[in-house]
C-alpha cells in the first residue's frame, strides 16, 4: 500500500444516554493510503456516520471517543499524529486542511446567513496565508472546477438560492479548498435525486483522479461503492465485519452479513425473476447489543453455542488485504477460548467450514 493518510485502530465512540450507553462505534480498524478510495457500507444506524465524524473529533455531546487511535499525517510536518489524545489546535489544523468532509444534506450543511464565497473563502483564509481577494479568486476557481456555471456570480449567492445538487457541488468545492489529502464524504448523494446523484459521484471520481486525493465514501448504496471504491469496508453495529478490495469482496463475499447485503440488491440484466432476499430481521435496538457476534440474531449461518458467546476476531485471507470477523473462518484455535463452554462448537464449525469451501 502507498503512504498512509489515515489509520484508525480500535476506535470506540459511545453515547452515554439516560437509558444506557450506546456503543455507536465499537472497535473499528481502517487504513487508507494516498489516492485510494475506501467505501464504508452498511445499513442505517450501523455507526458509519459517527465513525466518520469521530475521525475529525466532530461528535457532539453526549457522544465521546472512549478509546482507540486515529493516526493522520502531522500538520506540523513529518510523521503521523494520533488525533484522539491530540490538543485542540492540532485537531483544528487537520480539519479542513488535511482531512475535509462533505456532509449528507447540502441544504442544511451551509449557513443560510452567509454567501457561498464567504463560507468557502473562510476555509482558505483559515489555513493559508492569502488575502481576501486571493481567497475570493480561488473560491471562484473552485466553484468553476466543481461544475457550477457562472461561478463569478454564484460566489455571492446564498445557499437558499441554489438547488441541492449545486449546493453539494459547492460543499465539495469547500472541502477541496485547501487541497486535503483525504476527503470524507458522508453519504454525499443521499439527499439528491438520482440524476444529480450520478453527476456528483462522477465529479468526486474525476476530482479524485485529478488531485490524487484519498476518499472515504460513506454510503449504504452498494452500487455506488462498487463503482467508485478501490477497497470496501462493511460495517455492522459499530465494527468493520469485512474488508478487502472491492472486486474480490463483491465477487466472493465471506461474512454472512456481506452476503446478505449483496443478496438484497437487484441485478440488472441477470434475467432472473427471483425475489430479492432482504437481510433478515432488523438492526437491533442500540441499547440491546447482542452478545458474542453482534450479527448472530440475523445470521443465516448462525452456529448455536458459539456465535452468541464468542466475539469474532479478524481473520485474514484468502486474498491479501482481506479480513473478515466471523467465527466461520476462525480456525479451530478460534474457539479455544470457550472450548469447554461449547461442545457442539467444533463440529458445527468444521461442517460449515467445509460447505464454505465448496461455495
Amino acid at each position, binding site marked *: 500500500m502507498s503512504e498512509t493518510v489515515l489509520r484508525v485502530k480500535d476506535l470506540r465512540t459511545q453515547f452515554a444516554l439516560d437509558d444506557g450507553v450506546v456503543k455507536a462505534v465499537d472497535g473499528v480498524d481502517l487504513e487508507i493510503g494516498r489516492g485510494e478510495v475506501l467505501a464504508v457500507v452498511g445499513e442505517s444506524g450501523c455507526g458509519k456516520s459517527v465513525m466518520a*465524524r469521530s475521525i*475529525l473529533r*466532530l461528535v*457532539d455531546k453526549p457522544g465521546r471517543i472512549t478509546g482507540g487511535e486515529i493516526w493522520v499525517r502531522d500538520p506540523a510536518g513529518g510523521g503521523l499524529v494520533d488525533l484522539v489524545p491530540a490538543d*485542540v489546535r492540532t485537531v*483544528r*489544523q*487537520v*480539519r*479542513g*486542511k488535511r482531512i*475535509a*468532509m462533505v*456532509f*449528507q*444534506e447540502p441544504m*442544511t*450543511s*451551509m*449557513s*443560510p*446567513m*452567509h*454567501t457561498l464565497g464567504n*463560507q468557502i473563502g*473562510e*476555509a482558505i483564509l*483559515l*489555513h493559508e496565508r492569502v488575502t481576501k481577494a486571493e481567497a475570493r479568486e480561488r473560491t471562484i476557481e473552485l466553484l468553476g472546477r466543481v461544475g457550477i456555471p457562472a461561478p463569478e456570480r454564484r460566489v455571492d449567492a*446564498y445557499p*437558499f*438560492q441554489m438547488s441541492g445538487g449545486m449546493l453539494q457541488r459547492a*460543499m465539495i468545492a*469547500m472541502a477541496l479548498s485547501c487541497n486535503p489529502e483525504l476527503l470524507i464524504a458522508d453519504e454525499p448523494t443521499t439527499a439528491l435525486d438520482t440524476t444529480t446523484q450520478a453527476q456528483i459521484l462522477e465529479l468526486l471520481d474525476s476530482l479524485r483522479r485529478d488531485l490524487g486525493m484519498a476518499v472515504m465514501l460513506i454510503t449504504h448504496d452498494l452500487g455506488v461503492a462498487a463503482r467508485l471504491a478501490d477497497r470496501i469496508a462493511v460495517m455492522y453495529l459499530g465494527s468493520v465485519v469485512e474488508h478487502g478490495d472491492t472486486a474480490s469482496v463483491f465477487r466472493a463475499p465471506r461474512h454472512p452479513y456481506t452476503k446478505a447485503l449483496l443478496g438484497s440488491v437487484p441485478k440488472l440484466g441477470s434475467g432472473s425473476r427471483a425475489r430479492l432476499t432482504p437481510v433478515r430481521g432488523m438492526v437491533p435496538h442500540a441499547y440491546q447489543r447482542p452478545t458474542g457476534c453482534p450479527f448472530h440474531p440475523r445470521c443465516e449461518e448462525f452456529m448455536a453455542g458459539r456465535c452468541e458467546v464468542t466475539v469474532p476476531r479478524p481473520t485474514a485471507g484468502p486474498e491479501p488485504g482481506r479480513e473478515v470477523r466471523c467465527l466461520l473462518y476462525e480456525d479451530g484455535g478460534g474457539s479455544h477460548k470457550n472450548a469447554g463452554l461449547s461442545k457442539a462448537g467444533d463440529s458445527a464449525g468444521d461442517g460449515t467450514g467445509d460447505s464454505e469451501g465448496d461455495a
Partner: protein
Amino acid sequence: MLSFLGRRLGWMVITLWAVSLATFFIISLPPGDYVSTLQANAEERGEVMGPAEVAALRERYGLDQSFFAQYWKWISNILLHGDFGQAFAWNNQPVGDLIWDRVALSCFLSVATMLIIWAIAWPIGIYSAVRQYSPGDYAATLFGFIGMAVPEFMLALVLMWVGMRYFHLSPGGLFSPEYQDAAWNLGKLLDVANHLWLPILIIAVSGTAGGIRIIRANLLDELYKPYVVAARAKGLPEWKLLLKYPVRTSMSPFFSTVGWLLPGLISGETIISIVMNLPTTGPLMLGGVLSQDMYLVGSFILILSTLTVVGTLVSDLALAWWDPRIRHSYEGG
C-alpha cells in the same frame, strides 16, 4: 425593496387611521365625560355646579358636539397643527407639552434598562446554551425563573424598604428633598443618578431573566444544526464559529421584535413609576384615564400606536438587513 417599502408605508397610514378612529371611539364609550367627573368631584366636596356652568364647560371643550365632529376636530388639529388638544385635568395645559416633558425621563429609563438587559442577557444566554445543563446553566436558569416570577412592584417595594431601613437612602422620586427646587449642578445630577439606578435595576431584572431564556432557547435551536458541524469541520476555532454561525442565526427572532422597543420608550414603566414615584409618562396616562381626560388619553394611545406601527416596520427592515433569507423574499415578492 422600494416597492415593498412603499406598500408597507401605505398600509401603515391606513392602519393608523383605523387606530385613531377606534381610539377615539373607545375613549368616548364610557358614560359621562370630563365635565361629569368635575361635577362628581364638586358634589363630593359639597358644592353644586349649576346647569349653566356645566353647559358652558361642555361647549368650551366641544363635548356637546357629535362624535364625528369631535373626532374631526381632534385629529385635524393633530395632523395640521401638531396640536394634541388640552388636558382638562392638568389646568388645560397642552397635552403635547405634558407628554414631552416626561418623555425624556421615560426614554432614558427605557434605553438604560435595555442596554443593561442586552449587556447581561446576551453573554449569559450564550453561555447557558453552549454549556447546557452545566452548573452555570442551572444557576442562570434559576435566576431566570425567579426574575420572571417575582413581580416588579414587589421587588421595588422590597428594595425601597431595604434601601431606607439599612442604607438610609431616600429611594423613590427623582430628587432628594434638598435638591427638589435647586438649580441643576453636579450634586443634583449625582442625586438623580442615585435615584435612578434602583428602578433601572428592578426593570432590568425581569427583562434580563426573560432575555436569557429566549436567547438560550433560540441558540439551542441552532447549535446542533448540520451547518455548525460543517463549519467546525473546516477547522474554525470554537468561539469564532459560535459567534459567526449559530449566534448570528439565532439573532433573527431578536431582530423581529426590536421595533417593539419604540413604543416602550414612551409608555414609561407605569407600575414601577407609580410605586417609586417617578415622573415618567406612565402615571400621566393612568391619571388621564381615571379622570376621563379624553384628549390626553387619546393622544397617548395614538402616539403609542404610531410608535408600534413604525416599530414593526423598523423591525421588518432590521430583519431584512440582518437575514438574507428575509431580504430575498421581500425582493422576490
